[in-house]
Structure formats: C-alpha cells, structure tokens
C-alpha cells in the first residue's frame, strides 16, 4: 500500500542522483524496491525471477540516469525499466506464448459475467484468509500477458491511466479497455471463489 512508504518522490535529489550520488540512489531503491518487485512478481509469477528482474532494473536505471529527462516522473521511468526487464525474462521463459501486442477486444463472450453470487458486502475479517490471498494471486496469474500489467500498474500500484500507458507504451484507450477486461475477469474468479467459500461455510453451520 502506498501509505506504507515513508519517502516520497519529492524527497529525491535528482541533481545528486544524476551526479551518481550513492545516498540519493539508495533513497530511490528504498522508495521503489517494493513497488518494482511487486510488478515483476505479478508479471513473472516467480519470486527468484522477479528478484533478478528488479536487480537488473536498478542497475540499468543507475547506468541510464543521465538520460532521465524528467518528462515523465521518476517513478514512471523506473516502472518502465522494471517492466521491460521482467518482459524480457518472460519472453525467454515462454518464447512462444508471449505476444504482448496482441490486440484486445472488449466485446467478446469471455467478458460476459457468469457469476452472480453477491459477496460485495461480506465483512473482510470473515473471508480475508491466507487462502483467499493465494487465490487472488493465482487469479492475477491467469490473466493474459496483455491484461496483467495494466491491472497491476493501474489498480494495485495506483498509477494513472496516462502513466500506465506511458510505462507500457500503449494508448490511454487501450489502458482503459484492457483494465476493464482484467477487472471483469478477476471479478469472475473471485466471485467463484467466494461463492464456494460461502457454501462451505453454510455446510459447516448446519
């Protein structure tokens, strides 16, 4: 959660960073290590690979800091480097299946809702278990490679539509349509999980 981060981007001394100041660089790593790791992990689904991608990303960023012109925010720039590092690994891992540029359509059948169990107002303390968290992570893993990064950047990392488009090099319209498909897909999976959870609980209560 963004609230957990103590530093903010405003605290970073960009001139010092560009001059190769280690303390300034350490501040950047403090600020972004968790966020870049989360993005890499969601994309790759493997903690070791994600760790390596984050390491590569910070090394690339350190080397390329001269070329950071400040047109986008430092955060957007770093997310882009980390995303690309993770994407390269993903392509190496699954060379045949990754086609990030595949067009996405909004209106095909797979986005039509099928689950209508109403879990919207269940108290979180009842259902937010370790198992539920694992299920949430698995559902993200099932998103297509086209939809997953959009959802992670926009809805988990909290980037704006424009920032997400900048990181992924896609239009705002593409961000919006992919985000919507990703959300519908995840809603479907969580609904399925929570309706099963509710049935189990009813059985236990009988």
């Amino acid at each position, binding site marked *: *959660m963004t609230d957990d981060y103590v530093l903010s981007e405003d605290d970073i001394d960009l001139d010092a960073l560009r001059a190769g100041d*280690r*303390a300034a*660089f*350490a*501040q950047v*790593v*403090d600020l972004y*290590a*968790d966020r870049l*790791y*989360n993005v890499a*992990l*969601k994309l790759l689904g493997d*903690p070791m690979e994600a*760790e390596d991608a*984050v*390491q590569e990303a*910070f*090394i690339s960023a*350190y080397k390329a800091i001269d070329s950071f012109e400040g047109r986008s925010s430092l955060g957007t720039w770093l997310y882009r480097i980390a995303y690309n590092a993770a994407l390269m690994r993903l392509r190496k891992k699954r060379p045949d299946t990754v086609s990030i540029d595949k067009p996405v359509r*909004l*209106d095909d059948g797979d*986005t*039509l*809702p099928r689950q*209508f*169990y*109403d*879990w*919207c*107002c269940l108290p979180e303390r009842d259902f*937010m278990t370790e198992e539920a*968290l694992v299920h*949430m*992570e698995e559902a*993200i893993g099932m998103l297509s490679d086209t939809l997953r990064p959009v*959802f*992670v950047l926009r*809805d*988990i990392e*909290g980037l704006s539509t424009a920032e997400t488009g900048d990181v992924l090099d896609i239009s705002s319209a593409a961000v*919006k349509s992919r*985000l*919507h498909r990703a*959300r*519908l897909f*995840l*809603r479907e999976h*969580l*609904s399925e999980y929570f309706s099963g959870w509710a049935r189990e609980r009813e059985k236990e209560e009988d």
Partner: protein
Amino acid sequence: MADHSGHDHSKDKARCRALLGQLSLYVDGEAEKALCDEIERHIAECEDCRIVVDTLARTIKLYRDHGHVRLPGDARRRLYTALDISDYLDED
C-alpha cells in the same frame, strides 16, 4: 435468464451488455452524468447487474488493499549488496 429478483433478464440482456463495457468508468467515478444516471436506473431494476457493479468495485478494492507483495528481507539484502549500497540498508 431470470435473476435473483425474478426480473426477466433476457429482455434487457442487450441493455446489460451495452452497459457492461461502461462499468469501469462508473466504478471509477469517471462516467458522465447521463451514463451514471442510466446505469443507476438499470441496476435499480436488474439485480444481476447490480451485483456485477458491487462485486467489481469490491474486487478492485481487495486488490488495492491486499495486492501488494513486498520484497522479502533476504532478497532486499541481496539487492542492496548487488547495487553496492548495503551501507544504506535500513533493517527494521
């Protein structure tokens, strides 16, 4: 398809479909007033779509609140060492 309220869903299915693509705008508070009104009128009548809207919003909230995985402590130490900044590692 009849939904939980007994409302004949099939009659309005085209409506449900038409609105489905706009629901993210609505839950993000980015829908124009006219669209907002239209969705609210529809979900007052259509229980299935009401559930989709509410559980969609809850899905987003759950991921916002719980979707972060932080870099584990040992991985953090390896990262700071690899970047030659381990003297700045704040371990708490």
